[in-house]
Structures are given as C-alpha cells and as structure tokens.
C-alpha cells in the first residue's frame, strides 16, 4: 500500500502542496468568491421579499378603495331613496290640500245653489197657492154662486195643500 509504505518519503511534499492548495482555496475562493455569490443570493432574496411586500401593499390599497367605493354607492342610493320618498310625501300632501280646498269651494257653491233652489221653490209654492186660491174662488162662484173672499179661499187652499 503506497499510502503507508511511501509515507516517510512523501509526507513533506503532500503537506506542503496541500497547504498551498487548500490555503488558496480557503482564502481566494472561500473568502473571496463565496461571499460575492452569497451576497447576490441575498440581494435576490431581498428583492423578491420587497416586491412581494409591495404587491401586498398594493392589494390592500385596492381592497380599501373597493370598500370605500361600495360605501359611497350605498350612501348615494340611500340618499336618493330618501329624496324620492320625501318628494312623494310632499306631492301627496299637496294633492290632499288642493283636494280639500276644492272640496270646500264646491260645498260652498252647492250650499248656495241649494239655498237658491229652496228660495225658488218657496216662491213657486207661494205663487201656486195664490193661483190655486184664485182658481178655487172662481170655481166656487161658478159652481155655487156663493161669493168667497180671497182670504177664505187662500186658507182653504193652504189647508188642503198642507194635508195633501
């Protein structure tokens, strides 16, 4: 086994060259190149994390905007509803008031008309009594020849008409 049989002749050379090579690897590669590679990996990880955080922030903002938009919409709808119901109520009230006024005017006119009618009826009735009394006096004179005073005839007619 050369590893053991040659050990006394070769150990110095092996140690010497291994220390040179391993020293070069440790200092130039381990301490020179490795940190740069790790730095670029760290920079990438940080960039990814930052971008993710920014995206998350943007999403939250968008959510917020959406929420406030929905709230605005609801408020506007409520306002519109309130306005329309107020307008409806006002219109109904106006209509009631106008109706009441018109009613009152109409009832005044009706009352006047009724009064005029009853007056006219009374006048007509009075006219009819006079005519009937005249006619009754004439008829009595013609039939019986008796002279009836107009006052007698009027009371007789009144009595008949009030009974009749």
């Amino acid at each position: 086994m050369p590893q053991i049989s040659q050990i006394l002749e070769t150990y110095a050379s092996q140690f010497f060259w291994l220390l040179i090579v391993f020293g070069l690897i440790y200092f130039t590669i381990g301490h020179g190149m490795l940190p740069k590679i790790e730095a670029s990996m760290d920079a990438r990880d940080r960039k990814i994390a930052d971008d993710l955080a920014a995206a998350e922030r943007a999403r939250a903002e968008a959510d917020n905007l959406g929420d406030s938009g929905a709230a605005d919409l609801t408020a506007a709808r409520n306002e519109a509803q309130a306005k329309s119901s107020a307008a409806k109520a006002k219109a109904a009230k106006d209509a009631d008031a106008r109706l009441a006024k018109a009613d009152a005017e109409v009832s005044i006119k009706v009352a006047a008309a009724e009064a005029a009618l009853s007056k006219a009826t009374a006048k007509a009735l009075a006219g009819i009594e006079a005519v009937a009394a005249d006619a009754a006096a004439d008829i009595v004179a013609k039939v019986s020849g008796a002279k009836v005073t107009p006052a007698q005839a009027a009371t007789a007619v009144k009595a008949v008409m009030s009974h009749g």
Partner: protein
Amino acid sequence: MAGESGKIDPMYQFQIEPLAQLDIAGYDVSFTNSSLFMILVLGALWLFMWGGMKRDLVPGRWQMAVEGVTGFVNNMLTSSVGPEGKKYVPLVFSLFMFILIANFMGMMPFGIVPGVHPFTVTSHLTITAVLAVISFGTVLIVGFWKHGLHFFSLFVPHGTPWWLLWLIPLIELFSFLIRPFSLALRLFVAMTAGHVLMKVLAGFVINGLNAEAAWVPLVVSIPSFILMIGITLLELLVCAIQAYVFALLTSLYINDAVNLH
C-alpha cells in the same frame, strides 16, 4: 500496468511519483503527481466558481449550480449550528468542495491517454489527516476561544448522574479525541477501497480478454465488465457521500464548539 508482464497491480494507482524535484529547508517537497492533481482540483474549483460569478438577478444554469452548492453548505451550517454557523461557511465549503472535486478527479477517465493515469488525492492518509486536523483544530480553537476552560464541560453532558461522573467524561473525552482519526480514516479507506475494487475488476476484464482459452472472456470478462459499470456508478455516489459526510461532521463538531451541546 506496473509490475511484470500481464500483471495488474491494483495498488499502483496510489503510487506517488515526483514530477519535479524540489527541496526546501532539507525537506523533499517535490512536485508530484499528487501535487498536480491538487492543482487540477484547485483549477476546476476556481473555474466552477468563476462561472457562477455573473451575479445576475435571474441566474443562468451555471450560476444556479454554483448557488445551489453554496446554498447547500450554507443550509447545512445554519441547520446544525444556527445563525452563528454563517462564519464557518468558507471553511466547510472549502473542505467540501476540495474533497468532492478531488474524489471526482480520481474517477476521471484520464487513463484512455496512454501513460496517464488519474490520481485520487483523497485516497492518501497524509491528505485526509491534514484535512481532519484542519477540521478538528478549528473545533478546538473555536471552543477554547469562545468558552475558555468552560469548553471542558462538553465532556459532562447534561443530566449525567453523579455516580457516573467518573466514567462519562472519560468516554466523552475519548469519543472527542477519536474524531480526527475517524474523519481521516473514513475518507481514506472509502476512496482507497473503492479504487482498489475498480482496479481489481478492471484486471479481471483485461486478463480475461488476454486469456488463451476462448470461454474465459465470456465467463469472466463480460460479467466483470457489467459489474464494473455498476461499481463505477456506486463509486461516484460514494465520492459525493464521503465529501458530504466530512462536511456534515465538521459542521456538527463546530456546533459542539459553538453551542456546547
């Protein structure tokens, strides 16, 4: 390949051969085939990392691969040590990638070029021992640095009954001290055994084809070849698993040092 005619020595692949003589302060630090493969590992790892340095916001395939590996080591440390584990990512990453690429480099089919054969750096006890000492030394330094002498409370787990206080710390101390050996031996043995097995099977295939009797290739070479395909895939898995185990155990040991159980 080595040795006498027709004999295939499964151990020859672990032979260290000097490519250029070099002496420093009386020590023989020659540039060997092992050193060459360490340099290749360094080059491959540097190339791999360089391809992932574009630092795009949206990563390409290569950058994704590099970031996958760094993220994997990062996760391993943060899950076993906690947020403090980030400090040890360079160390564990270096250990993990060095072992992983060295293991894979030993599996590369460089042998198709005549005269070249791949060398598995991590199949050498000297290498795995140094890596284990680096891992264990970090644990010791971090432990004493952070907790001072209180670090020794690691050897007295919570809830130890008083009448076992003479035994439990002894066992804990022993299991603590054995860590560098288990780390080093596990990797060394796994890589060596796998490569020996593959070489032995490859020897069956080649020697069977060279045999004089016509039935031998059919009975020996073809089944060995089919088996070898499976073993090779298994070895690739072992390469990754051993690197993972080394890195995971190192991060668990660092957790002991940082958090004291």
